[in-house]
């Protein structure tokens, strides 16, 4: 016996709609896949030890990209060193000490605004304040300071969530033993939240390493392997952009891009590993 028309319609629509949803998901994966495939196929040939460890030379930047690797690592690590204590302590304030009110709302609005600043605006800001205003010139320090402002709200948010995830009863156990607030926060809460905090830091590092617009106006575009914070440099993303847009050396662009993606992947995978390991230890 035929089912009534309404039911058939319902089932048909359901099947079609779910099919469309599957297509959405598959398209997303296809985007990622094609992008990665493209970069890998074109770049993997470039990843020789010579490419990684030697310097570029000549008008066409033939050779290697080592100074860009060093620049990227230097400015990223420096930025994280500057921003991590400030962001974590700010998150401690918001999660543990703050009382709901205008002050907290102002801070949160500022953090959200900072998080949504287009990176080019941040780059110009960095140029105006650090490079010119403070006289630091194009340098790793300028770049790191500008990146710090970019990373600050991101790390504040992930750290605050990590702290809030620590169960209330654990804190009460500490207070119940006669611990002060700071003792509870420093000896119990932060250690308990540290895996998630670390994850947030790693993801932020990946973001910082991939930044272009901020770095180009604060660290400059000079091929240089920075040693002191006041040294300039050209990071890998900047290198990719210049190589690609000026059409100079597309092979170098691919190779650098692939290396960059591998770096970011490494950060992401480490972050996931930490979360998984922590979940297992919690029993």
């Amino acid at each position, binding site marked *: 016996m035929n089912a009534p028309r309404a039911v058939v319609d319902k089932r048909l629509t359901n099947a079609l709609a779910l099919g469309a949803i599957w297509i959405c998901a598959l398209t997303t994966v296809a985007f990622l896949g094609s992008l990665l495939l493209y970069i890998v196929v074109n770049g993997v040939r470039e990843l020789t030890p010579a490419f990684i460890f030697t310097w570029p030379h000549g008008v066409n930047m033939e050779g290697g990209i080592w100074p860009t690797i060093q620049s990227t690592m230097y400015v990223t690590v420096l930025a994280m060193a500057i921003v991590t204590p400030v962001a974590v302590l700010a998150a401690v304030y918001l999660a543990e000490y703050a009382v709901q009110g205008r002050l907290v709302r102002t801070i949160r609005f500022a953090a959200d605004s900072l998080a949504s600043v287009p990176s080019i605006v941040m780059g110009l800001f960095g140029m105006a304040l650090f490079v010119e205003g403070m006289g630091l010139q194009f340098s790793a320090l300028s770049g790191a300071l500008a990146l710090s402002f970019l990373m600050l709200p991101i790390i504040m948010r992930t750290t605050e969530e990590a702290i809030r995830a620590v169960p209330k009863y654990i804190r*009460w156990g500490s*207070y119940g*033993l006669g611990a002060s607030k700071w003792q509870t926060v420093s000896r*119990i809460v932060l250690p308990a939240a540290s895996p998630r905090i670390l994850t947030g830091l790693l993801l932020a590092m990946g973001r910082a390493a991939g930044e272009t617009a901020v770095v180009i106006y604060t660290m400059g575009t000079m091929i240089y392997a920075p040693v002191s914070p006041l040294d300039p440099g050209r990071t890998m993303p900047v290198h990719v952009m210049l190589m690609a847009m000026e059409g100079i050396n597309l092979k170098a662009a691919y190779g650098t891009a692939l290396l960059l993606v591998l770096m970011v992947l490494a950060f992401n995978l480490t972050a996931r590993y930490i979360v998984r390991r922590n979940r297992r230890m919690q029993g």
Partner: protein
Amino acid sequence: MSETLAEHLSGVPVGHDQPDKFHVRDLEFYYGDFHALTGITVGIQRHAVTAFIGPSGCGKSTFLRTLNRMNDLIPGTRVEGNVLLDGQDVYAAGIDPVDLRRRVGMIFQQPNPFPMSIYENVAYGPKLHGVKKKADLDEVVEKSLTRANLWKEVKDILPRGGLTLSGGQQQRLCIARVLAVEPEVLLMDEPCSAIDPTSVQKVEDLMAELKDRITIVIVTHNMQQAARVSDFTAFFLQEKVGEAAELIEFDRTASLFTSPKDRRTEDYITGRFG
């Protein structure tokens, strides 16, 4: 007996010669606008076990938490009246709640060991208060775990995480943790409701051993347990939902259970409600 303690009103002298460890007088408690407790006046005798019983949600745990100012951690709470520990008002201006909580320890319903090793859990308290040398810490850890009847079970696995123990063991670990700071009072908020019966037995035995030197107050919804372990019992009741809870009756346990003076107490004990 209940009259003597409850009417111990005027001129409570500061000093150590009264039988009451805690004396609460006309306590009113508010969660923001909600009036949770009213007119609580009671004395908690030292070196004895006092049980708080009553239907769930009536405020026993809230009252327990006023004794060590744990309610301060909840925003918007307000206390009126006096809570005297050895004659001193714990809510007086300038009193350090941190020090209070060391002297008046708390065990919670859900065992909550820290995500650290068993050793570190017990050593946490003494370390907070300045004990540094490993030999001293080892001694405190062993002593506290022994007092909590847990030493034999864990002495070979001290580095293992506190969370790997069974529920009952975790609760005894929490007791050991509190004992390590040598409190004078132990407040226990339904300590046995989340653990297995064998462990319940062990915890109850523990209470009998500890009460010689520590004043114990236990909130429990299990009347048989109250009858088993306590010397004194206080019955709390919230007459109507949304109203403040009151202390209905307070007496020696034996008297309260065999010949309750208030009809409401009798109704609760015989299971007519709650």
